[in-house]
């Protein structure tokens, strides 16, 4: 029981030391917090941009439709039914050849009357199909192509492939940049904290000489680093929230055709990650520099 109490008192003292240390760091703490803020904002900002790009890619992807041209003389209704039975179909809209003809007229914006040609309308009946997940489009298209009564099928194969390629690339780029930025942030953090350790090297030396273990010296620094990380990350969080809720909302008002959806959830997710990363990097960076120092002077 007494030894538990003893450990609790030691932990209490370590926490006190960390708080005193934060209070005494003065302007140095603002440098550390500022550095952390800058690095994390780059990281968080990048995540949000990738997130937006993904939303954009999904939005464009979801607009891809399959157009099925029905053979002359085949039943449109029968094909419609057959397609509806496939999995992953969201909607099937028939476009009768007369409608297609009108559309063509409208698209060509011509005043020329095609009415006399109507008897020989060369356009086929068609079905417009919307799928639930754009990823399934090629598979579904292939299945429909095999059905009887299908003359031709069109679903913007190249466009879809390109979008998926871009999404894959941003994902890869996202991971690579996240790793690089994380390493850079930790290095910067570690170096900045090294300065605070250097500032207090005499104090550390004295503590060691009067019997403080390395762990005892390390822990307050670790807590201090975690606190700086959290503080820097909190500023980043506020900044990203401001960016999303004020700046991006304004931008969206100006460009409503850019589908950015409601980004609140993803912003909170990014902020959550940033806070966690801030704390971990602050603590780890701090630990590296103290460990390095203790190793040099042990």
């Amino acid at each position: 029981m007494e030894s538990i109490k003893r450990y609790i008192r030691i932990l209490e003292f370590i926490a006190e030391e960390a708080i005193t240390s934060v209070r005494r760091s003065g302007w140095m703490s603002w440098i550390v917090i500022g550095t952390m803020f800058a690095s994390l904002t780059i990281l968080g900002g990048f995540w949000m941009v990738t997130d937006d790009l993904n939303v954009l890619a999904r939005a464009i992807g979801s607009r891809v439709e399959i157009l099925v041209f029905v053979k002359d003389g085949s039943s449109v209704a029968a094909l419609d039914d057959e397609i509806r039975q496939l999995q992953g179909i969201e909607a099937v809209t028939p476009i009768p050849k007369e409608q297609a003809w009108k559309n063509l007229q409208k698209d060509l914006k011509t005043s020329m009357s095609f009415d006399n040609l109507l008897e020989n309308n060369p356009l086929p009946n068609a079905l417009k199909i919307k799928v639930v997940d754009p990823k399934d489009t090629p598979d579904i298209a292939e299945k429909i192509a095999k059905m009887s009564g299908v003359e031709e099928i069109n679903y913007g194969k190249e466009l879809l492939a390109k979008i998926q390629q871009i999404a894959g690339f941003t994902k890869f780029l996202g991971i690579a940049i996240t790793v690089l930025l994380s390493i850079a942030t930790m290095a910067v953090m570690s170096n900045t904290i090294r300065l605070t350790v250097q500032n207090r090297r005499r104090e550390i030396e004295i503590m060691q000489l009067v019997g403080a273990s390395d762990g005892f010296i390390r822990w307050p620094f670790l807590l201090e680093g975690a606190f700086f990380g959290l503080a820097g990350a909190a500023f980043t969080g506020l900044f990203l929230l401001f960016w999303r809720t004020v700046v991006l909302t304004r931008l969206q008002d100006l460009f409503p055709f850019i589908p950015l959806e409601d980004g609140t959830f993803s912003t909170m997710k990014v902020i959550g990650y940033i806070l966690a990363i801030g704390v971990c990097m602050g603590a780890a960076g701090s630990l590296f520099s103290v460990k390095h120092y203790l190793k040099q002077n042990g």
Partner: protein
Amino acid sequence: MIKLKQVSKVYPTGVKAIVGLNLEVEAGEFVFLVGPSGAGKSTLMKLLYRAEQPTTGQVFVGGVDVSHIPQGQLAGLRQRIGVVFQDYKLLPNRSVAENVAFTLKILGMSKGDIRQRVKAALDLVGLRDHMDALPQHLSGGQQQRICLARAIVNTPPMLICDEPTGNLDPETSWEIMRLLTKINMHGTTVIVATHNKLVVDNMRRRVITIDNGRMILDQARGVYSVGVN
């Protein structure tokens, strides 16, 4: 308590601070370490609390070869040795009481015990009225006494003092010496490195004289004989 076997210390600069030193100090002894500046006194003391490691030989403190203990056990060793440093080594920006309490706090002692011990130690060195002052606002002699209070607050079995009267007037020097004698009478082994001839000659304790890193004299009830041929 202390045993040095063929200890040599050569600094990276090539300076030979200690050369083939053999020394034994029993528990409860009071020993003066004298010698001219640069003789190796401070190095010898640093070897005892492992602020330095010997180049060759072994240093035993309380039966443990401190020159070869792992890093993890270093803190434990230093908690058992009280050290009065020549340059005080007080924590800046911490009050006198906080400086003295530090060694007790790292041991996880209760707040009540800490308060009691700190007061007692500061009473002993006559600094009770300066508990809340910052060390840098006090005189050299007072800082020396804070350092002494910190060294004895944990009642260690061994006390090492590097020039404890170096910055003190004769009267305070005597006070400190009386204090060290009192601590020694309670069973603590005390080792004092000093240049203070008056103190050494009057106390008539064991005197070890070092010169050029070698022990040249070991007197049971000796006098200060540096520079005397």
